Structures are given as structure tokens and as C-alpha cells.
């Protein structure tokens, strides 16, 4: 038998329009902790879902314990000796900890289907003892802290006695104390010969616990190194390592007065002490990994959430923004990150989607003035080059790029002074993307102030006049357009 427990060869996976994984290889040694690194969208999670049987690869071979492995679902993966800690927690809140751990494999009295609760609790207790976790298995899941839920998730993954455990960002919700505990668990598993794939964005953790590191970038395998023979900077180089090929249409705009000024904004558990200024004519990029707290900050500025402390000034005047209504009155617009969840009204038409946040402008004696609506909406359709046969088309029948343009049009109809764009080109095709970029640049030239959150480095670098770097709820630094590059941003984020 070979020294590797898991060998992947030439794995390719395509989603409509995107090659998520391109000819990937990966080899995991028996009893090793193998770190997987890469930016958002590098393909790590997709690959893990393939190993765990959630996705099927288009091509390629998975060899597990020397034999070719073909799993059609998580249940089968577990049977073969693979378990996984998922990035997102999915507890059943109203069931006990023990019931959650043994969900789908309950102990029952013979084949009666009658669940043996006592045994589940006993087994859970034994499991927690061996892992040195201090949680009562009879508590309801909903009564646990997020950190403890994560520990239960970890314990569940361990309880399958798997030969390979995939940990997808297992420390995203836990504190240093629990991280130490987790590392203890990992080391004892390792001593028993269990192999672990460890995905994390946290450099210090990676270097502390991993034996080997593999880097992915844009769905491609970049390389595998022993953790001892590589340093942080080289690792960042490997993760970034690309020239920016895309062209960004950023024209120079004159920076005018400060329009928005945020002072010491804090929201417990989300972000602390965020301060920044925004000028008319400026595009301010906010960079950071998922979970950096970027969306949370702008949600507080837009009145979706309320900050615990801190002040917001617009044109030098202190403002209280308690609801999106207030924000709109202050001429702020927010294009949200999740088009389907918080942006589009899917069952409604383009026309209705456009006018909804600004209906008062179209009212005439209480009625909506059809002609005015048509005129203004058609103006936007033309301006943004929205591809649709007519305004009555339902927004759900449009492509992602055109949907995004309709939502942009909605906010432009408000004639805002401050535009906040959260991942404005996510899930948008290349053509629409460049059109949206051109529009952003044009708006800045007209003296509008733009805040753009983006997880795409080239976009951040290409479009921003200034870049704020956030990491784990803290503003780590600021870079001007000229001095900014990918390495610097990652360095600031990680230090």
C-alpha cells in the first residue's frame, strides 16, 4: 500500500460558465495534517465537496486507501471512512446535543425504530470525555454558544472514527481557547494515524498545525510544500502569483469634499472601531476575506443594523440612521451582496423592481404615473444597456448581469450621493461586469461617492482610489491606489 491515504488525479469540475476546478491533483499522506490555502473562489471548498460526495467531478480519479473511490453522497463517504466539518454550521436547534451528534444513525432498540436516548447521551458523554470537551449532551443545541456548537460539530466529525477528516475553516467561530483544544484533538487523532485536510485563511494556525501545505488558485493546483520549508511570504506569493490581466475602466475623477465620515463604529461580535472618510468623486474599496466584517459595517451605515457605538457624519453633520428609510433620505444607496436574497423582487417585473424604492417621485394625485415611469425606466434601460424585450419582463427571466443592472438602476433613480456596492459584479458575466465598472467610474466623475466591497482582488485594485483592508472585524490598514498591490493587501490583512 502507498504512503498516501488519498490521491486525487486530474479532477476537473465545471459549473455553467465557470471552471471551478481545472485538472487538480492532491496527495494526502497517512497521519498527516495537510493545509489547503487559496483565496476566495480558488476551488478549495468545491474540491472538498467532491471528496465528500456532494458534487461529482466531470473528470478525474479519486483514490482512497489505495482503491478507487466513487461516492454518490455524504452518507457513502462516511461509510468509506471520510468525515467532514463544514464551513457553515447546520445544527437542528431544538434537538439536544446528543441527538444532533447521532442524527441519522440513532441507536435504537433492535429494529423497532424506538430510539435509545439514554445510550446516545452516554455515548456523547464518552466522546466528549475523550476529546476533553465540557458540554452537557442533554442541552438543546440552540442554548449553546456558537463556539460550543462548533465544538459539537468537531466532535461529531470525530465520532465517525474516520480515517480522513476534512476540516473546512473549523475555527471561524471559536476563540483562541477552543482553537488550542481543537489542535489538541487534531494531534491525538494524528497519533492514531488519522489524516486531516485543514482549510483555513489564518496563517498562524496553518503554520502551527500543518505538516504540508497545498495552494490552489483560480481552480488550479499551484503546488505542495512541506510547512517547514516555506515561509509566509512565499506562501502569499503562491496564492497571489498572477498578473492582473483584466482591464479596468477607471478614469481619473477629481476628489472633492469629504461627504461621509465614519468614526469609531463598533458592533459587538462583528467589528470594532471602524473609522474612515469618503470623498465626493472617490471610489473606496474595502478588501478582506469572507467574514472580515465588511458587509456588517455597511449594514450599520445603511440602517439595516444598529451599531453599538460610533458616529456617522454626512457633509459634516452628524446623522442618526435607524432604518434604510433614513439612509435613503440621506441620499445613500446600497446594492446588496446577495441579489436573490436581499435585492430582487423575483416575481415582479423590471419596471416594478426599478421604481420600488422611489415611488413617490412617480406619483401624481396618488396614482402612479405610467408615462413618467416608462420614460424614466427606459432611460435607465438604455443607460445601463439592459437586455430585455420590454419593461414588463419579470426580473427572474433575466441573466445575472442584467438583474444586477436593474437593481443598480433602482438606486440610480434615487439620484444618491453615496453609493455602497457590495460585491457589485458577483455572478455577473464579463461583459456586464465591465459595463458596471465603466458606470462606477462615470458616477465618480459626476461627483458621486462610491464604496465598493469586493472579494476579487483585481477588481479592488483596478477600481479603487483608496483601499481599506479589513480582517476579522478590524480595519487593518489603508492603501492608496498607486501603492496598492495584492501582496501588500494580504500582508496587511494577515499581520
Amino acid at each position, binding site marked *: 500500500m502507498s504512503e498516501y491515504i488519498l490521491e486525487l488525479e486530474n479532477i476537473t469540475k465545471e459549473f455553467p460558465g465557470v471552471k471551478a476546478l481545472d485538472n487538480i491533483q492532491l496527495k494526502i499522506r497517512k497521519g498527516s495534517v495537510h493545509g489547503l490555502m487559496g483565496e476566495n473562489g480558488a476551488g478549495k471548498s468545491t474540491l472538498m465537496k467532491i471528496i465528500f460526495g456532494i458534487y461529482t467531478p466531470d473528470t478525474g480519479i479519486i483514490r482512497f486507501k489505495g482503491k478507487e473511490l466513487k461516492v454518490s453522497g455524504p452518507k457513502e463517504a462516511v461509510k468509506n471512512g471520510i468525515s467532514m466539518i463544514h464551513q457553515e454550521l447546520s445544527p437542528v436547534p431544538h434537538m439536544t446535543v446528543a441527538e444532533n451528534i447521532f442524527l441519522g444513525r440513532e441507536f435504537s432498540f433492535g429494529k423497532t425504530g424506538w430510539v435509545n436516548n439514554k445510550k446516545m447521551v452516554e455515548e456523547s458523554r464518552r466522546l466528549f470525555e475523550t476529546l476533553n470537551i465540557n458540554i452537557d449532551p442533554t442541552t438543546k443545541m440552540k442554548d449553546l454558544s456558537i463556539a460550543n456548537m462548533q465544538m459539537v460539530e468537531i466532535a461529531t466529525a470525530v465520532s465517525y472514527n474516520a480515517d480522513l477528516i476534512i476540516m473546512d475553516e473549523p475555527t471561524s467561530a471559536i476563540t483562541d481557547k477552543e482553537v488550542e483544544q481543537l489542535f489538541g484533538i487534531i494531534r491525538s487523532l494524528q497519533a492514531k494515524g488519522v489524516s486531516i485536510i485543514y482549510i483555513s485563511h489564518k496563517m498562524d494556525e496553518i503554520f502551527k498545525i500543518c505538516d504540508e501545505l497545498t495552494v490552489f488558485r483560480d481552480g488550479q493546483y499551484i503546488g505542495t510544500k512541506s510547512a517547514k520549508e516555506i515561509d509566509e511570504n512565499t506562501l502569499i506569493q503562491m496564492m497571489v502569483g498572477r498578473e492582473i490581466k483584466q482591464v479596468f475602466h477607471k478614469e481619473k475623477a477629481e476628489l472633492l469634499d469629504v461627504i461621509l465620515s465614519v468614526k469609531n463604529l463598533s458592533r459587538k461580535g462583528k467589528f470594532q472601531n471602524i473609522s474612515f472618510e469618503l470623498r465626493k468623486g472617490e471610489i473606496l474599496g474595502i478588501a478582506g476575506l469572507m467574514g472580515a466584517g465588511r458587509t456588517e459595517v455597511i449594514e450599520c451605515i445603511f440602517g439595516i443594523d444598529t451599531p453599538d457605538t460610533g458616529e456617522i457624519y454626512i457633509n459634516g453633520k452628524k446623522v442618526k440612521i435607524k432604518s434604510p428609510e433614513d439612509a435613503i433620505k440621506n441620499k445613500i444607496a446600497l446594492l446588496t451582496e446577495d441579489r436573490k436574497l436581499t435585492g430582487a423582487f423575483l416575481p415582479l417585473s423590471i419596471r416594478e423592481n426599478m421604481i420600488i424604492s422611489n415611488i413617490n417621485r412617480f406619483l401624481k394625485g396618488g*396614482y402612479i404615473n405610467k408615462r413618467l415611469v416608462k420614460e424614466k425606466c427606459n432611460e435607465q434601460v438604455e443607460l445601463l444597456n439592459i437586455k430585455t424585450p420590454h419593461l414588463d419582463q419579470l426580473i427572474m*427571466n433575466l441573466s445575472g448581469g442584467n438583474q444586477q443592472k436593474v437593481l443598480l438602476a433602482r438606486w440610480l433613480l434615487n439620484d444618491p450621493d453615496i453609493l455602497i456596492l457590495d460585491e457589485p459584479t458577483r455572478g455577473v458575466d464579463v461583459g456586464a461586469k465591465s459595463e458596471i465598472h465603466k458606470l462606477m467610474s462615470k458616477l465618480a466623475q459626476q461627483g458621486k461617492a462610491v464604496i465598493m466591497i469586493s472579494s476579487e482582488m483585481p477588481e479592488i485594485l483596478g477600481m479603487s482610489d483608496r483601499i481599506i483592508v479589513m480582517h476579522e472585524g478590524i480595519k487593518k490598514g489603508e492603501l492608496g491606489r498607486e501603492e496598492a498591490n495584492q501582496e501588500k493587501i494580504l500582508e496587511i490583512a494577515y499581520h
Partner: protein
Amino acid sequence: MGNPTSSTATAVNQGSERNLWKEKIGPFISKYGIVFVLLAMVIIMSFLSPSFLKTQNLLNIVRQISFIGIVGIGVTIVIITTGIDLSSGSVIALTSVMVASFAHPGNSLIISLLIGVGVGVACGAINGIISTKGKIPPFISTLGMMTAARGLALLYSDGRPIPNLSDPFMFLGRGVIAGIPVPIIIFALVGIVSHILLAKTKFGKYTYAIGGNVQAAKICGINVDRYLILIYIYAGLLSSIAGMLLTARVSVGQPSMGVSFELDAIAAAVIGGTSLAGGVGTIPGTIIGALIIGVLNNSLDLLGVSSYWQQILKGAIIVSAVLIDSRKNKKA
């Protein structure tokens, strides 16, 4: 990470023949399909029963469904917001006894009507405030109102009918203007006003927006709670109007009036294409839905089919309508 957002398929780039089907004929049928169903029923019945197409019979059908129709219009607006109103029937009963206790000969008609309207507005406001500010599903808050308002009606009337209503009041239920029964005229007025409200005003657009995506509605600066409360008040108001018309029609205030009216009203809305998933539904649709129920009941009566069968058929029609609706949604 890694999994791209799958973009919604565009209908634009497909072959032109399919375009015609997908963009013209398909939507036309799905938009007006329910009208064809009604027309088919009318045509078939006109052959089966000679008395069906007589003016008197047709007026009868419409008058019978005007009460459910009025309630159904309010319920439609509520359902568009993904809500529900189970209290309509009980609000009818409470309105009935409260109004009947005042609308005796010699008392002011206007004040009688104001009392009735007041009952509906109050019940609707309570429904709306408890659902929004109390963050309770409207199913529960209106279920509570359904039980409580019925109890209150029984308590207030001591469980007995309240007779001796004034002639002007009874005219609302029994009168005829230019050959048309008054309830039909009021039904038509309510339908027109509600349709304009829903299709042409801010109130209407916000109703669809709240039902289409409540998160997005908040982000668009809509005061969702305020509009929801207004919507429940409107539904309550329409229930009390139906309550007054029914009371005038039977010439007596009844605490047992309107039992299971809410379910017939919901049925009319659903048959008329209102989606319980929210964001979809029209007043003309609901009126057609109510007419279908009315024609069905009347036809089966004329054909001498037992009322047991009528219930079974009505059930089948409701479920079929939603089945078609959910298939439509799946395709999108």
C-alpha cells in the same frame, strides 16, 4: 467559495418559435386560463340546463358570491404579502351583532354603518399589530382573532339573533337599483377600488414588494410594518362590509354568521391565481375565482347534484388550481 451563482436561464436566446410560445401564448394562457375555465363552465351549463342563462339566475349567482367575493378581495391582498387572514368569518359575525343592535328603526343609518366599519378596522388593526410588532405568524394571530371575535359576538348577543332592523339598513342587502341587487353593486365598487389600489398606487406596489421579498423591501426603504398593518386593516374593513350586507340580507344580526367564510374567501383567491408564496395575485383573478365557486354551486344545484358532491368538487378545484400554480412557479 468555488461554487458560482448559477445565473438564471434567459429566455431571450432561444429559437424564435419557442419564443412565441414562451413569451406570448404561454403567459397568455397562464394569465387568462382561469377565465377560460369559467367560460367553459358557463357554456357547458347553458346546454345542460335551460334555466341557467336566465338573467334572474345569473344575478342570483353573482349576489350569492358577492359576500365571499368582498371578503376574498381583502384576503387576496393579505395573501400577496405572504400573510393569511383566518378571522374574516368571525369578524363578519361580530360586525353583524354589533350593527344589528343599533340599526333599529329610527336610528341613524350612518352611525350604524360607522359601527360596522369600526369593528372591522379594529379587528384588522389588532391582527396587523400583533403580527408585525409581536413578530407572530399571521396564521396564529388571525387564528386567535377568529376564535376571540366569534366568542365576543356570542357574548355580546347572548348567543341569540338580533332582529328588528330598519328599512334603510335592510335595503343594503335586499334592495335593488336599476334591476341590480345592492350587494352586487357594492361588490363591484369594492372590486374596482381595490383593483385600482393594488394596481395603480404606492400601497399596491408595496404590497407586491413585501410579498415578493420582504428583506429587499426593507432595504428599499419601505416601512414594512406600517404597510402590513394597513393591509390587515383593509382586510378587516372588507370583512365588516360583507358582514353588514349579509346582516341586511337576512334581516337579522346573527352571532353564528359567516362560519368558514374565511376558507371560501381563501379558496376564491387561490383559484384566482393568488400565490401563497407571495408577490402574485390580482383582484380580477379573485373575482373570477369567486364566480367559479358560485357557478359550480349553482350548476350542481340546478342539476340536482347533492351538496355533498358540491363540497367534494370544490375541494378538487381548489387543489387543482394550486397544483397548476406550483407547476408554473417551478418552471420559472
